[in-house]
């Protein structure tokens, strides 16, 4: 080695050149390898660094050998935080037919666990040339344990969310429901699909579960007593349009919406449109007062039925003397209201109804909204009948909203179910002047104190209201034995906070009601009971007493008390 070195150093000429070339080549190769190692080294550091073994999502651990499904839907709660709809994690069973060894045995084992599955269907599914088949969605914990005991490699569980409505049918028409894949197909669930699904955030409603229950039980009582086919009710805040309760009966279990009848799923408050009858007198009277074509002291002759072309307008109770417009309202005279509407004229009444939203779908934040039925050709006689709620059909939600505008000082609120957070002031649509609104409050209260709504009268709180009894249209035309009886009430009527509408569909008169099935007999007691229980419950109406009510007293001079009118 040493001698070689000596020899090389003594080399001359061509040898030296060769040696130099070799050195350069050697250096190039060494640099290349060094760089390669450095790159590999850095790569190793990166691989072993803090983000190693992390592919973005944490792997499901061995305990929960199931895969995560769609994101969780947000909860729906009522105004007090009571859960109305929530999503609970459940396991769903699926199979990969590729890994099935013996389809016959597996199908038998599965049908032993799930008695509702059919062996033949399962066998055909398991022998299919596919990689994924659902066997059973949303297992119970017991079923899950049994499936794990089968332990077939072809079976696997997936975590899914199941929508649960703890209050059951109580709020079914409001919350709506979701299908098996967790997509909203009715009610709030559908209307707020994006917020619930994508945002996953909770939704707070304006509904008060206690009031909802109260309203439902009272309507149910009336339906049973008068053997009606259905009923509905709404409680709304007159100032901001918050719906506190909405009941439509018959109702259904939102967990079993697919077995519920169409009749039960039908929302009578927002989809159903009805000729509302005399409750419309509130709006036509307001139109006449606002347009200054009539005054509450004006006298009308209602002794004879009114004949207009081939129509005959009659009164439920005949009054054989001229009466004031105040009395027309208090005793609910069709003839008087029609005469008042004649003076008002078609255009003004139509414009007023249009302003109240009667010509378009109800303003409410659920997708189920019915279109009102308006006569195709509006004749002059239509004006007369529409003034007392015939010949025009709207939903109860329309009436509630319009009534709120009549008593709250004249502005039309926007009914809604979902609590609006913060205060974003919307320009309010003014319909009538505050003075007219105050007179209407007095008028409605007088109808309760002295007239057709006497069953709603409360000892300790002012209540105003208007009954409505409409004959329903059948193949044979209007029939007296098929009625739609309603009552719309406001309380406290000297400073209104809440409007309540209750409607009973096709009630039959009883012995106790002397055969009557009018709004004053069937719906008014429901409203009365709701107010009786609700007033002490709500913060704003808790301490109220019947104090002075100048608007009411001012109207008393327009009514005579010489006649004995039946109270409905």
């Amino acid at each position, binding site marked *: 080695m040493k001698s070689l070195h000596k020899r090389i150093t003594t080399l001359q000429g061509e040898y030296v050149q060769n040696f130099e070339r070799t050195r350069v080549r050697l250096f190039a190769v060494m640099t290349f390898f060094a760089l390669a190692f450095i790159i590999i080294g850095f790569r190793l550091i990166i691989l*072993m660094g803090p983000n190693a073994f992390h592919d973005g999502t*944490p792997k*499901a651990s061995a305990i929960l050998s199931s895969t995560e499904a769609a994101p969780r839907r947000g909860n729906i709660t009522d105004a007090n935080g009571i*859960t109305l709809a929530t999503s609970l994690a459940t396991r769903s069973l699926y199979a990969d037919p590729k890994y099935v060894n013996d389809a016959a045995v597996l199908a038998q084992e599965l049908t032993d666990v799930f008695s509702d599955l059919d062996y033949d269907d399962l066998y055909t599914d398991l022998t299919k040339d596919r990689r994924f088949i659902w066997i059973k969605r949303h297992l119970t914990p017991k079923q899950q344990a049994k499936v794990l005991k089968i332990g077939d490699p072809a079976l696997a569980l997936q975590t899914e969310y199941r929508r649960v409505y*703890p209050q*059951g049918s109580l709020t079914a028409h409001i919350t709506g429901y979701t299908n098996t894949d967790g997509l909203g197909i009715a009610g709030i669930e559908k209307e707020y699909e994006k917020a619930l699904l994508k945002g996953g955030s909770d939704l707070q409603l304006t509904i008060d579960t206690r009031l909802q229950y109260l309203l439902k039980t009272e309507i149910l009582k009336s339906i049973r007593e008068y053997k009606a086919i259905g009923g509905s009710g709404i409680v709304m805040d007159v100032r901001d349009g918050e719906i506190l309760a909405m009941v439509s009966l018959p109702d259904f279990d939102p967990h079993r919406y697919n077995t519920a009848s169409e009749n039960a799923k039908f929302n009578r408050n927002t989809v159903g449109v009805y000729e509302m009858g005399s409750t419309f007198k509130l709006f036509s009277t307001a139109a006449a007062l606002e347009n200054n074509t009539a005054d509450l002291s004006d006298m009308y002759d209602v002794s004879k039925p009114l004949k207009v072309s081939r129509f005959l307008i009659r009164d439920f109770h005949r009054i054989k003397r001229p009466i004031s417009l105040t009395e027309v309202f208090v005793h609910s005279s069709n003839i008087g209201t029609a005469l008042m509407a004649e003076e008002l004229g078609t255009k003004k009444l139509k414009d007023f109804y249009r302003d109240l939203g009667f010509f378009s779908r109800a303003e409410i934040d659920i997708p189920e909204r019915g279109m009102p039925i308006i006569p195709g050709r509006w004749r002059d006689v239509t004006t007369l009948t529409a003034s007392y709620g015939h010949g025009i059909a709207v939903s109860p939600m329309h009436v509630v909203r319009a009534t709120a505008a009549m008593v709250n000082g004249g502005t039309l609120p926007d009914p809604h179910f979902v609590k609006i957070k913060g205060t974003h002031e919307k320009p309010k649509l003014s319909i009538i002047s505050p003075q007219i609104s105050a007179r209407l409050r007095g008028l409605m209260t007088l109808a309760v104190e002295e007239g057709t709504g006497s069953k709603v009268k409360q000892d300790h709180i002012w209540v105003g209201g208007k009954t409505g009894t409409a004959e329903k249209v059948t193949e044979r035309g209007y029939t007296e034995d098929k009625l739609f009886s309603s009552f719309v009430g406001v309380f406290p009527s000297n400073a209104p906070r809440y409007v309540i509408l209750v409607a009973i569909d096709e009630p039959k008169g009883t012995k106790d009601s002397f055969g009557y099935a009018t709004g004053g007999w069937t719906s008014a007691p429901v409203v009365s009971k709701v107010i*009786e229980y609700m007033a002490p419950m709500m913060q704003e109406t808790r301490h109220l007493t019947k104090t002075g009510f100048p608007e009411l007293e001012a109207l008393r001079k327009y009514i005579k008390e010489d006649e004995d009118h039946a109270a409905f």
Partner: protein
Amino acid sequence: MIRISTLLWLGLSVSTGSLLFNISQQTQDTRHQLTRLEHNIALEKQSLDVLSAEWSYLNRPARLRKLAEKHLDLNPIKGFPVASKENIIYLKKPAEMFPDPLMEDQNTDPEQILFTNSQDIQTRLPHARPKALERDPPGSTKKQERPQEYNIATPVRHTQYSSKQFDDVLNTLEVN
């Protein structure tokens, strides 16, 4: 010289390598721990969902009503005043009688309502007295005598009481 530098580099690379290996192992462990914790949190959240759903289910108004009717002698409250204004006794300084150490400003409201005329309540609210109070205590055979009449001689208002006078007022509330 060559050997020393080789050894140095070798030592350095081995120590760096082992350090790196250690860190990566720690990272793995922490990662696993995190996954476990996340899984546990998910499970806890799921049980919370189940519990809140159950709570809502148990609080159905229909069920509460049934339970209240079975176990409580309470009626729905009525929305009217239980006592008239004349039958309310005002106490000037309730703080003197019932000193409350937690209350900072005790003299803000001098007219605190303390008692109402019980007779008034009894006549206007016959159901105001829970039935449970009428029942005999367990074991006693003698039927408890129920006070029949309550009486306050003259309702006194806006008067400053000493604690001695207050005792007198209490005495007038006793059954005659």
